[in-house]
């Protein structure tokens, strides 16, 4: 019974990929993938997802630590707020970003007049959109890792004279390193597949804001073979990273 249900789940997930592979234009694939557009979109996707992950780790790990280790009024609210982008339709997130960080937006106007920074229609805007939707995946994973760890190690370090920063760096971080890696991988994968927030906030321009998912969506409009070829690239890259990291890191969790 259980095996049957598990098999059903596998079949359900695998079926669309079978469809993709079956429609793949294998003979024309090299020519389709040799187009400069593909390398451009792939490069942009990989680098922007990496940047979004780096930002998420830098601000997300401290946030997870605060949520896991400190009880403060409004903690439940902060936690809900941080995970909101996970459940929100990405297009809504993108529109919200546009209204806040666009050049007519509350913060965006200030960014433009003070620093001349214009986030919409820029690569930085792509990273912002990806960070917005991917950050919760890191925070949730790391917070769970911290919650299952024993806070007494940190207390012991403090008793032995370590400052809060030293205890965090030398004790907490090594303890939750596997969670951070797992969270970063999830975060990166989510950023790599990001579509709705990106196109709504950053727009679509080859070489500047057109990531692989955007390229796939537009190719579907007039060149299905190209769309399938691009999809295969996205699937292959994601699968390679997930398999490689899973073997290496997730086993430890």
């Amino acid at each position, binding site marked *: *019974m259980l*095996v*049957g*249900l*598990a*098999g*059903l789940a*596998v*079949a*359900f997930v695998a*079926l669309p990929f079978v469809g993709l592979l079956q429609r793949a234009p294998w003979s024309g694939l090299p020519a389709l993938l040799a187009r400069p557009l593909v390398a451009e979109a792939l490069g942009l996707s990989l680098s922007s997802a990496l940047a979004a992950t780096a930002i998420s780790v830098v601000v997300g790990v401290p946030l997870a630590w605060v949520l896991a280790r400190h009880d403060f009024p409004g903690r439940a609210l902060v936690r809900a707020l941080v995970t909101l982008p996970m459940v929100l339709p990405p297009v809504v997130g993108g529109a919200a970003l*546009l*209204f806040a960080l*666009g*050049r*007519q937006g509350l913060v965006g106007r200030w960014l433009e007049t003070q620093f001349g920074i214009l986030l*919409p*229609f820029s690569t930085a805007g792509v990273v912002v959109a990806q960070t917005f939707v991917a950050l919760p995946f890191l925070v949730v994973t790391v917070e769970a890792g911290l919650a299952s760890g024993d806070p007494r190690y940190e207390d012991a370090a403090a008793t032995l004279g370590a400052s809060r920063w030293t205890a965090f760096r030398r004790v907490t971080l090594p303890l939750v390193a596997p969670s951070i890696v797992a969270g970063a991988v999830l975060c990166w994968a989510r950023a790599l597949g990001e579509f709705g927030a990106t*196109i*709504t906030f950053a*727009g*679509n*321009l*080859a070489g500047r*804001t057109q990531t692989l998912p955007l390229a796939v*969506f*537009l*190719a*579907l*409009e*007039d*060149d*299905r073979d190209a769309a399938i070829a691009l999809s295969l690239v996205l699937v292959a890259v994601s699968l390679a990273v997930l398999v490689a990291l899973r073997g290496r890191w997730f086993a430890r969790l």
Partner: protein
Amino acid sequence: MLRPLAVAVAAGLALALAGCADGGAAGDTAGGARVLSVFAAASLTDAFSEIGEVFSSSSPTSSPGVEVRFNFGPSSGLLTQLLEGAPADVYASADEATMDEARAGGAVAERPTAFARNVLALAVPAGNPVRVRGLADLARDELLVGLCAAEVPCGRLARQLLDREAVRVAPDTEEPDVRSLLTKIEAGELDAGLVYRSDVRAGGARVEGIEVPESEEVGTTYPVAPVARAAEPELARAFVAFVVSGEGRRILADHGFLAP
């Protein structure tokens, strides 16, 4: 171990196939009403919604009641759905090339009827803060300019027009459809963009239109036709006839479309 897995895979496949067969509304009955499923280009959203309302309340075949259900989207995306067997009764595209593809692919068998024409217009945020006067302004470097992507009809048309008038534009974004382009202009995030004349009307007070006389030469013609495997072929023909009737033409003109 193997058999339950095989059964599960088979069940999964069966579920997926059932999902395909059950995916659409065509031929369904909704509370006894006959349902007509219309796939129409996104730019027709407002005009066709009104046409649908009038049609379902005035159609001669409306004795058991007719409910018109719309699927609005980019013409080419709708075509992909049609070729994949999505259940539809009527298809209206934003250009003849896409309709020709539908005929070549067998999704449409009957001769399509041209029912409207649309030309491009410049759209700017209300008040025209950066003083756009004509097509040539799109070449100004300091402006944030949006076009539709070259993959969709409004983008093809825009490039045709700009090439013809030898205006070189480096767009800041190439939006997947005309509505998302218009949204960014309404929000004031883009300074100008080329959209359909009919979209400027739909944009309301937050967007201003500037007519482009040159665009008369490169307009697009909208064809409509019953879908080959329509579940309601009779109703589909009645709907097409209504679109090209005086009443249909009047509604289209109200929404900024020109006569074909």
